[in-house]
């Protein structure tokens, strides 16, 4: 088996599909439901798996909506939760690395870019990200606050899995995402990039 990286919702579905499929190969942020816009100054009320143009509904991804620097509204709830209290299945994305031999990982990171160059900022939108519970069910093991991520200017560093008990053939990172437009109009020049290193 080769090394693979797959992206899915925090609960393991739906899966973001490879570009070659021409299908649901990214995630999109919307207002109250699919296709509805987010007002300038407000944050996503829903998150969907969608296509490159954001025109096809590929199923919901867990939604996290920015509440304050250390909190988010989970799903449709109207009371914010602390980021470090959010469960893995409530994270927007689960990124899974599968390898053919047990490995430890380091220097894992996640960034937002303009779909052209990973060093460029996403266009017309502010993206905030946080790593959600590194140990399932362990309060406080995730990020305490949101990090605004943009190109190479600000990158979300993810947990190293380098200790002996952390090595394995499968590694998961759970990432919460929330977005707010900085100007009016549809935004499609937004992509996400994950990288990791291992032996």
């Amino acid at each position, binding site marked *: 088996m080769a*090394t693979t*990286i797959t992206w899915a919702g925090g609960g393991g579905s739906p899966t973001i599909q490879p*570009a070659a499929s021409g299908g649901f190969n990214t995630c999109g942020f919307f207002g109250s439901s699919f296709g509805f816009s987010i007002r300038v100054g407000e944050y996503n009320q829903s998150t969907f798996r969608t296509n490159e143009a954001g025109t096809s509904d590929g199923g919901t991804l867990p939604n996290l909506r920015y509440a304050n620097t250390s909190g988010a509204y989970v799903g449709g709830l109207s009371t914010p939760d602390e980021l470090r209290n959010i469960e893995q299945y409530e994270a927007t994305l689960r990124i899974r690395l599968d390898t053919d*031999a047990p490995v430890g990982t380091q220097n894992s990171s996640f960034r937002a870019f303009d779909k052209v160059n990973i060093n460029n900022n996403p266009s017309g939108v502010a993206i905030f990200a946080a790593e959600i519970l590194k140990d399932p069910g362990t309060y406080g093991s995730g990020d305490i606050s949101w990090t605004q991520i943009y190109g190479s200017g600000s990158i979300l560093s993810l947990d190293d899995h380098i200790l002996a008990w952390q090595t394995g053939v499968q590694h998961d990172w759970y990432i919460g995402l929330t977005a707010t437009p900085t100007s009016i109009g549809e935004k499609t020049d937004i992509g996400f*990039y994950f990288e*990791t*290193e291992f*032996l």
Partner: protein
Amino acid sequence: MVEVCRRVSNTVPKNRWIASLSNGETIFEDRSPGLAPAWERLAQYVEENDLSITMLRAEVAGLVMKCPAGQPAYIQKKKFWSTGAQSGGAICIGYVDKRGGARIDELGSDRSSHTVYCKDPGPPWTIYSKEMRDAKNREASV
């Protein structure tokens, strides 16, 4: 005794690192089920047998990239990336020079390359020469 791979076999991937050792042996990266990563086993092998890596090279997509011979330490790691829709990987090989700085070349399976200058990442990514290991052990015992 730790297992290392001395010849190309069906467990040796096409894109791979190859290490020359101070005893004249050549060790190939292999992916043998149930065994630790080949670089980790190589680190153990050189330590157990008082050896040094004298040269490290990588074969990626039919191209060969060599690190200069006789360096105090050599570095290897894999880098994988994904945008969700697309993904790719690189074999990264490098060395620590005599001033302690590291140079790492990232060689993509699409024949791209990228050079990074950084601090020595240390074990398990870095395998030190016998002289360096001895010096570190002396420092630790003082």
